[in-house]
């Protein structure tokens, strides 16, 4: 069996509204490999979030198949995500997926550490929560509430929250979309560090082409189509990225 993490075949998504329907995703086929950094670029409304939500089991395609390779004690096992029921999909999200959102979505009444701990409490084999806070350079801020943290700091907490459960893939929907350039660079650096430390593939949506410079591959989307996939022969080191 081919070594991959996710494989989409002819994925399609139609949203039905009142009287109108939108084909948000048209016939997308692709493979996501272990440890790679994929950046998804495309104009607003081109279907980037639709695709990402599908990969994360937050949404089901109208057509097509999505496969996930799960590593078990007895070797890799291929699972067709598109054939699972809602409970099983929820298990997949819990076990395999780490999500990072544009607006962080931390729980306001929980401290930074408690936000990470809540995520850890849902995992069977979580990493150490305080160590995660150190990993994202927020040692000493454990007791602070989201409202007491800057946008960049909140995003780092949300990355800690996503990786504490040892995700098999990390999905980020415009992780720098609400941040200034300095904090954006910090977050991209952190994502690269996470990728290297954990070896899980990262798929990040962005509007900023700068992030594409450090990616292994870039998915270009337009009008619901995965127009082209470009392999970056020479991704630049994150330190040299110009934002």
């Amino acid at each position, binding site marked *: 069996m081919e070594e991959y993490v996710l494989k989409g075949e002819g994925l399609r998504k139609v949203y039905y509204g009142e009287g109108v329907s939108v084909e948000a995703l048209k016939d997308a086929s692709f493979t996501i490999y272990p440890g790679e950094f994929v950046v998804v670029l495309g104009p607003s409304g081109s279907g980037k979030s639709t695709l990402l939500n599908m990969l994360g089991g937050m949404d089901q395609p109208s057509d097509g198949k999505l496969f996930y390779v799960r590593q078990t004690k007895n070797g890799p096992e291929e699972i067709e995500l598109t054939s699972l029921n809602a409970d099983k999909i929820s298990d997949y999200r819990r076990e395999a997926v780490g999500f990072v*959102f544009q607006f962080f979505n*931390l729980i306001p009444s929980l401290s930074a550490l408690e936000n990470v701990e809540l995520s850890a409490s849902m995992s069977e084999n979580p990493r150490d929560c305080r160590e995660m806070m150190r990993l994202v350079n927020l040692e000493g801020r454990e007791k602070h509430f989201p409202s007491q943290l800057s946008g960049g700091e909140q995003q780092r907490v949300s990355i800690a929250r996503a990786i504490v459960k040892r995700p098999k893939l990390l999905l980020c929907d415009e992780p720098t979309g609400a941040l200034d350039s300095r904090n954006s660079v910090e977050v991209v650096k952190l994502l690269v560090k996470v990728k290297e430390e954990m070896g899980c593939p990262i798929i990040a949506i962005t509007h900023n082409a700068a992030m594409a410079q450090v990616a292994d591959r870039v998915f270009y989307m337009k009008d619901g189509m995965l127009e082209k996939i470009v392999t970056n022969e020479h991704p630049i080191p994150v330190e040299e990225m110009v934002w």
Partner: protein
Amino acid sequence: MFSNEIISMLVEGTWVTLYMTLTSTFFAYILGLPLGITLVLTRKDGLRPNQFIYKIIDVVVNIVRSVPFLILLILIIPFTRALVGKSYGPTATIVPLTIAAAPFIARLVESSLLEVDQGVIEAAQSMGASTWHIVWKVLLAEARTSLIINATIALATILGYSAMSGTVGGGGLGDIAIRYGYYRYETDIMFATVILLILLVQIMQYIGTKVAKKIDKRYR
């Protein structure tokens, strides 16, 4: 100004009013809280969309809420009698109070839970949290300040209903106000009951706001 007899009657009336109000509110929450949660879960964009269940609760809640309390009280007398053995007095009044307040509380709970940031719910969902986990750890936990403030509103409303029930022998301060103030023109006694009712509302509001502030960790 009042004889000892009257004073002890007013004290007794205050306790009876408190008993009716608190007990009814308690039972009304036992009914209304799950209904409110269900409304939020089953709505179109909820965690467990279910048009059928949503519509049923929605309609029932609206119907019960549109019946004036005194009419509801009289309407369900047979049910009240079947449940507690009589149709008047403080304990019997708890039945219509509970039934009248439960839909109101369901709506209050619904609006509190709908205030919770959709993005936060989405984040919990993306972690693979179960629906119950999200209800407990996110919806109820995040909405708790609003829930407490609304509980204070519910208490004051139910207190008002309990006073109204005095017109048909419900007991408590409302009962005293009707018997002395309305039938016997002893307006000073009626005046005293009104002041006691206002005081009760103020105290409830004060405690509610204090508790709400205390548990709101966000701006500590």
